[in-house]
């Protein structure tokens, strides 16, 4: 493993790929946390798709494949897509989901038109704009890394400086406005930061799947913590981890596009988080559910034992046949009886007959009392 890391950072190309993917992961992860909390997970998808015509137009106009120019084109197109989105949702009865779908598909379709035009140009063979579809980490150059790192630094610094404003706007917009925070400004700023975070990842992850880079780390991180700062940090870490693993894997294995590989790593993290994150994970839900069901079963059985004895005889320790108990119990009779025995509340006689112990009797009495008291207060 250590050896692998050493080779990783001694190989020039791999080092750039690794650093690039980590940076993209951190930036997309941090901004994604806000996209998810604002319930705008799919905005990223629309913006990412909308950048394609920008990339192609930038190339067609400048004939340059410098990544800075292509990124500027992408960012502008992404921004125009967002503006259209606002234009549609604010002025018509068309809802957000439909507006997002239109932006996403129409911009991308237009991008494909331009892409096919670009590919027929004589200069195009080396432009390699195809990598913008599914991403190719191996094409990252030193120059690209510099741009990515600089933009990331700007994005993260801005976020840090305006942390408190962004936080209150995302949580409670009305209140934020009432205390004099310019929510339109914060909204535009946050959207711009998200656009930048998307744009710097395009070459590596591709327009089709870039949105997952925003949503998945944040969705995973949300499961582990109830603290915004921790969530953003975790999200950044998850983004970096999956970005790194995906980019390296796709660089080392032939015929493996980077975007989909990263998404598979990301999704694994999400599934693990959804299932096993402490407290919030689904596994704990199941454990909690079983525990409470078990408790209900044992206490019901305990009360039933007492009830039976009181009805049939005056002896509270009278043993009862397990079949009779099973008939009025709530399933899983053997486990329940075992549990009662372990607690010392019931004892087993021959012929599968069971009876209360003195401790069990006391417990059953207090439970019944509690239950009756509950009935009285409810009325």
């Amino acid at each position, binding site marked *: 493993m250590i050896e692998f890391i050493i080779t990783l950072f001694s190989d020039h190309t791999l080092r750039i790929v690794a650093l690039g993917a980590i940076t993209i992961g951190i930036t997309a992860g941090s901004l994604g946390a806000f996209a998810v909390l604002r319930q705008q997970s799919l905005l990223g998808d629309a913006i990412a798709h909308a950048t394609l015509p920008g990339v192609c137009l930038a190339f067609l106009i400048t004939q340059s494949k410098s990544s800075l120019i292509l990124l500027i084109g992408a960012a502008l197109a992404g921004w125009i897509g967002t503006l259209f989105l606002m234009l549609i949702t604010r002025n018509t009865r068309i809802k957000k989901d439909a507006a997002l779908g239109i932006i996403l598909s129409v911009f991308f379709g237009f991008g494909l038109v331009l892409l096919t035009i670009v590919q027929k140009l004589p200069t195009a063979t080396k432009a390699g704009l195809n990598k913008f579809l599914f991403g190719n980490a191996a094409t990252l150059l030193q120059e690209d890394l510099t741009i990515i790192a600089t933009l990331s630094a700007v994005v993260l610094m801005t976020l840090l400086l305006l942390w408190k404003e962004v936080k209150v706007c995302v949580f409670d917009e009305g*209140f934020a*406005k009432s*205390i004099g925070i310019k929510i339109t400004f914060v909204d535009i700023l946050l959207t711009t930061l998200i656009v930048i975070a998307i744009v710097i990842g395009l070459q590596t992850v591709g327009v089709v799947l870039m949105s997952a880079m925003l949503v998945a780390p944040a969705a995973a991180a949300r499961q582990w913590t109830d603290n915004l700062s*921790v969530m953003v940090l975790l999200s950044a870490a998850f983004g970096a981890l999956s970005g790194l693993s995906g980019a390296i894997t796709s660089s080392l294995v032939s015929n493996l596009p980077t975007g989909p590989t990263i998404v598979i790593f990301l999704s694994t993290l999400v599934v693990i988080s959804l299932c096993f994150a402490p407290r919030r994970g689904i596994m704990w839900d199941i454990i909690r559910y079983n525990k409470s069901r078990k408790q209900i079963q044992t206490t019901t059985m305990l009360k039933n034992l007492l009830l039976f004895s009181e009805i049939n005889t005056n002896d509270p320790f009278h043993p009862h046949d397990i079949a009779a108990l099973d008939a009025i119990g709530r399933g899983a009779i053997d486990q329940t009886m075992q549990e009662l025995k372990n607690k010392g509340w019931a004892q087993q006689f021959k012929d599968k007959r069971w009876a209360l112990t003195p401790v069990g009797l006391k417990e059953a009495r207090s439970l019944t009392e509690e239950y009756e008291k509950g009935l009285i207060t409810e009325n």
Partner: protein
Amino acid sequence: MTKQTELSAISINDLTVAYNEKPVLWDIDFHAPQGVLLAIVGPNGAGKSTLIKSILGLVKPAAGQILVFDNDYRPQSRLIGYVPQKNSVDWDFPTSVLDVVMMGCYGELGWFKRPSHKERELAINCLEKVGMKEFMNRQISQLSGGQQQRVFIARAFMQDAPIYLMDEPFAGVDAATEKSIIALLRELKDKGKTVICVHHDLQTLKEYFDWVMLLNVRRLALGPVNEVLTAQNLKKAYGGKAGFLAGMNTEEK
């Protein structure tokens, strides 16, 4: 127009607000004296929340003038503490009770600055006032409806403003919490603050508030509770629907 002997806390002239060209508030005049506990009452869709939001500048009026202490109000001047409707936020947001209360000082802090130890102490203080100190590190999704409301009120306390606007502070709150919230509001009033609440329950109106504004798109009545709460006024606000309520209220007199 009524004579104004002293400075009104909030004074509104000819306010009209329209959503999609449909007036929600029409030609409202409203003068809230200082140091009262005032309820805005009216049927659903009467524009109660909209009135509060226009005062805060959250909604842009189509016409009219809103003055706070005789000046144009800008949120930056921090004269108003605001308690929004409880269900206007996502309570699954990853943040703690203390964090939400601290947001009350964000306006005062201004851009870039972070809350410090001093603000933290202040926030804990505010939580103590509403009886939520032991919940300060709880995640907000683990609170009951009443506790959520108290957190919002603590946040408004943190703003330490001379006027408080509260949008349905008693919605989804149990009876005990309702009593303790009203006690807190009285305390504010006794300190000379003006508290204006959107309120739903006509039955508790007299007990809780000393001033009331009846609203149904147009202003129907404004004044001390005993003067305003007549069968005739209620009928104007609620139509035939509230006949029984009107009956109840006049009976008390």
